[in-house]
């Protein structure tokens, strides 16, 4: 008999066990970790300055990494061939021919452009090239900026934005939901009407209209903040509904009555007894809310109505893809979409698995 077996499993160890039994959930978790890692170490991972323009290397196609050159000579240091720009004599379209004489070698953990990290001035990078040679693993954009570095940099703004929106939403949602469910009566009726109002609005058109009234020449940072508030203006309603429902059912349970009988005040009951019991539900809602915020932000920035440069977000990078000719000639401008896809799929898979782990009896309908 091991003593260990006699200790009952805590709630969270049960949740963890159920979560890690779900392979899709683990995959989602890995994606989420990768994203956060990328966002934190974006500068270190980026081979070039995301804002650095290069008029000599406009719309370079993605370059492949080689270990063997055209004569099958092996090189331990990976390299990518450069391009010769030319013109198609018939159509006058610019063409990119691989230039076998030009090898751009990749160096790992070397010095490159300077950046700030935690107040330190650093210039070390995971990989970069030397001596004015460049490689673009995802191609370059209309200003010759490295798409890969910009995708890394974009992860910061996109995730930070989602984080801000979700934080505002969660705080409002929990406050309104718990107080509405706990105090009931007239207060509940009043807040429920406001919640219904927020739920009645069509999301996309309302956000668009609110974005429309922001002044045009606004500071990009202020636009970022206002956008976050605009997107939070409706999203809290759904969460507060769910929290209220949960609180209503908890309130009827004996332990709350016992707490009341023992003379706990409202504050204590809410913080000590109700909040911990709605937390798991809120965590799930949050992890499923993040992808929806990412999608909305990307769509707005894609339309040119969201995040403004000099900030970089995935959606904003796709803004140039609105023009069909650009996609037609330079399909790699669509590459930030895959970053969006990975994050949305990752957070969704993670959230779904977490929901199943936290509440194994709930079906997919009860979101």
């Amino acid at each position, binding site marked *: 008999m091991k003593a260990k077996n006699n200790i009952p499993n805590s709630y969270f160890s049960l949740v963890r066990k159920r979560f890690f039994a779900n392979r899709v959930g683990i995959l989602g978790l890995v994606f989420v970790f990768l994203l956060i890692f990328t966002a934190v170490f974006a500068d270190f991972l980026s081979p070039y300055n995301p804002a650095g323009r290069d008029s000599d290397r406009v719309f370079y196609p993605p370059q492949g990494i080689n270990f063997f050159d055209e004569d099958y000579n092996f090189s331990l240091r990976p390299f990518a061939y450069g391009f010769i720009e030319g013109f198609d004599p018939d159509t006058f379209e610019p063409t990119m021919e691989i230039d076998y004489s030009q090898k751009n070698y990749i160096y790992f953990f070397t010095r490159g452009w300077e950046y700030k990290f935690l107040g330190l001035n650093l210039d070390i990078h995971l990989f970069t090239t030397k001596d004015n040679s460049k490689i673009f693993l995802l191609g370059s954009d209309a200003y010759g900026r490295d798409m890969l570095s910009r995708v890394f940099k974009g992860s910061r703004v996109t995730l930070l934005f989602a984080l801000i929106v979700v934080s505002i939403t969660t705080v409002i949602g929990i406050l309104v939901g718990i107080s509405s469910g706990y105090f009931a009566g007239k207060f509940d009726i009043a807040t429920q*009407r406001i919640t*219904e*109002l927020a739920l*009645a*609005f*069509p*999301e*996309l*058109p*309302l956000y*668009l*209209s*609110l*974005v*429309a*009234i922001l002044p*045009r020449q606004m500071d990009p940072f202020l636009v970022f903040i206002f956008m976050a508030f605009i997107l939070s203006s409706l999203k809290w309603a759904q969460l507060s509904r769910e929290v209220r429902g949960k609180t209503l059912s908890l309130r009827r349970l004996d332990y709350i009555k016992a707490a009341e009988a023992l003379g706990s005040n409202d504050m204590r009951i809410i913080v000590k007894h109700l909040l911990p019991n709605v937390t798991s539900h809120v965590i799930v809602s949050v992890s499923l809310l993040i*992808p929806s915020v990412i*999608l909305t932000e*990307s*769509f707005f920035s*894609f*339309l*040119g*109505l969201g995040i403004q440069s000099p900030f970089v977000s995935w959606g904003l990078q*796709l803004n140039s*893809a*609105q023009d*069909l000719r650009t*996609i*037609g000639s330079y*399909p790699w401008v*669509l590459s930030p*979409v895959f970053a*969006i*896809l990975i994050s*949305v*799929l990752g957070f*969704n*898979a993670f959230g*779904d698995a977490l929901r199943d782990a936290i509440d194994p009896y709930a*079906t*997919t*309908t*009860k979101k």
Partner: protein
Amino acid sequence: MLSFIIRRILYSIPLLFIISILIFFIIQLPPGDYATWYVSQTKALANITQEQAIELTITLREKYGLNDPIVFQYLNWIKNIIFYFDFGFSMHYNKPVSEMLADRLPRTLIIALICHFFATTIGVTIGIYAAKNQNKLGDNIATIFAFLGMTIPRFFLALLIMYWLAIVLNSDNTGSMYSPYYAVQPMSFAKLWNGILHIWPIFAIAVLGGLAYNMRVMRGNLLDVMRMQYIETARAKGLSENQTLYRHAVPNALHPLVMFQGIALPYMLMGELEAAIVLSIPTAGPLLVESIQRQDTYTTAAILFCLTVILVIGNIIADILLAVLDPRVRQN
């Protein structure tokens, strides 16, 4: 039943009232009004002096009641909407907003409703199939499909289809409602077919997401219902598996789905808008975005208002349907 319907409709009137106030404030927020815009336009085109311009501003403000207290302005605005379906004047397009809405909004609504129909019927069918074959190959494929359908960004799908149509297939059927030839023709089957050739990507994109949602909800509900005791009873009295399923389980599993339609309609509408914006098919979506880019506030507000009213009506219909299906709802 009738009292339920009346109560439900009366109940939504204060909601619409508050919504209209909020939207009116959205219109009022940007600096400048119709008069300043009109005068600056005239100044640019007709070359009038500063004094004339100021005079014109004053007369225009008088004429349109822009000097009235804001409450009266609001009453005037809402009165025109309710009695004359007049949403004001589009500054960018230089014609009444209602004219453009009459052109664009029905299209959006029809497309969204058709999408809604297909998404529901196909989604429910696949949902039943998936629940019947729980954890088998078909169910797994359907689940993965639903997951992808819900998570892949719709504007990305729209871009992809657009790229495929315009670049790979070199098709002419993009970026408009009809081909130039049919644009001026009266409605006919050929024109309808031509229209479908242009707007099918919207159907595909909006239906995919909605169908995935419906499928998930239906599958979950049905699995819940199948665990109930009365299903066991139905089996025990000798009904075949299919009879149990279609006579007892499916009708009961449909209730939450009907309740869910209140959420599904906005989702479909948003899907239609998003796809139409990217594919620039002239429905309400592109008009909305364009009016925002041109800061054409009246048009923006009108579209927002109409879409909100549609959603409120959609919710009423969903609630009434639910009351018809489920006696517990109408008695409460």
